[in-house]
């Protein structure tokens, strides 16, 4: 049996990588992929914990999260498309009409 906390640590590492990626990368699609990485890291955590605690709540949660992530993908890509049509770029640093 692989101890649960191995999974948790792995998931934590993946989550951190994803978070770092969102902050550092400039291509909107890559940022989006990093977000998906974060969500999947959480999925991993949930599945591992569901196994540890022996109830199915975690696994149900994972299904829900996957569905939500799919919805987000649909929306996110549509938004990216809308911008590409105008600016022909998905480099977030170049999309800066609105100043910080």
């Amino acid at each position, binding site marked *: 049996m692989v101890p649960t906390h191995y999974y948790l640590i792995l998931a934590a590492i993946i989550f951190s990588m994803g*978070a770092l990626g969102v902050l550092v990368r400039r291509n909107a699609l890559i940022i*989006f992929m990093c977000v998906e990485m974060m969500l999947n*890291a959480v999925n991993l955590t*949930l599945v591992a914990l569901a196994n540890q605690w022996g109830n199915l709540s975690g696994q149900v949660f994972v299904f829900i999260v996957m569905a939500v992530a799919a919805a987000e993908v649909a929306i996110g890509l549509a*938004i990216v498309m809308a*911008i590409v049509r*105008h600016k022909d770029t998905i480099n977030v640093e170049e999309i800066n009409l609105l100043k910080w």
Partner: protein
Amino acid sequence: MSLPTLDFSLILPELVVLITALLVLIADLLWPRAASRGREQAPAVLALAGLILAGLLTLLAGEWSGATLQGMLVADALARYLNLVVLLAAALGLLLSWSYLPHFSTQRSEYYALYLLAVAGMLFLGKSIELITLFVSLEILSIALYVLTGFHRGQLAGGEAALKYFLLGAFSSGFLLYGAALFYAATGATRLADIAAQNAGGFYMLAGLALFLVGLGFKLAVAPFHMWAPDAYQGAPTPVTAFMSVGTKAAALVALFRVVQAAGSVPVGVWATALAFLSLLTMTLGNLAALRQSSLKRMLAYSSIAHAGYLLVGVVAGTAAGFDAVLFYLFAYAFMNIGAFAIASLLERPGFYAVQDAGIHAADGLFGRRPWLAVAMAMFMLSLAGIPPLAGFFGKLYLFAAAVESGWAWLAVAGVLNSVISAYYYLRVVVGMFMAEPSASAHLRLPLPASATLAVALTALGTLLFGLLATPWFQGISR
């Protein structure tokens, strides 16, 4: 195998909103082509009817005693008040949308359907007492709002706003989700009641709560997670901004309150202190940034951020009185903020391919052009600054009282000083309206669509009277 019997009467208002959303979506298809005038107005009318029906159901449904739907959704006093705030904000935003939408889009059904779905998300979020339901509600409301933010496809600012909102929103959802997973790690339960009962304590609960705060803090536009807000507020169609500024905050605050209550094992001092500093940072940053804005909408966006800071003061207080104050303030805030955005929307010069953003000086000389609008806007500005006897003052009074009572007097002092700072930029608008000449390019006779005027009238009345009339009743809502 038998299916569990679900008491759907507990979520009747939300179901009404959902069904209306679906009806609005297909109404466009089913409406006979011939009647074109009715066809244009039908989605808006239908949506408004749905909101009003949901509101009536909330008000008239008798005592919401706290019965739960399988332990996932609860119908208690807190949810009821949240419903009222969100539905009020939604109805007012809808009135604004009615006249504003034709200027930049012909896709009315989609707009109103998304709008109603966002409302439904908020209502469910207020009722959620279980982690999965909470997450899903939050996502429903967020995704709908991402799309609505970018709805004005003609202008690039809208798309950019939507992208920023989306990326940062999804990012923070990840944090919130991880927080939920850590709660699950600590207790093996996803229902908040079960989590509270376990009284687990320890690293997982603390980390989970922290991540939850990050996720919800983003939604509330709390510093330092506020970066998306000015852009999203500025790029979104103004009615969406108006609705979003109140609705999301209200729903997220209720969720925050419930989660914090459930995480009772985490020592209060720890999270309260963290929130107190976040509140201080938010208030100060929001107010100082607002001082330097040249766009009216962006100034109002930073003012919204500052108000999130004030609202957090009530949560920091940690008492039932504190959260009652938050609810009171949310009502007052709905009136004054949506009113301010309403007038900002009237001052814009909408065009199908671009909206000329209303600068700070767009309101100059408004008293000469449309005196009652200027008076209303003055009331909104003064109320946002917290001047008696307007609603904003009473809201701040209750918030700061709760803080002082719980020993957070320094936070109350910070809040009060921040109100003085904010008075400076609110007064700037008032000065422009009453004491300056209109700029050359301004409309001489501002067009006043009926629905927007109604929204302004309602919000003005609310700002004036809510503080005085509602104070006798606001007590004992939060447990």
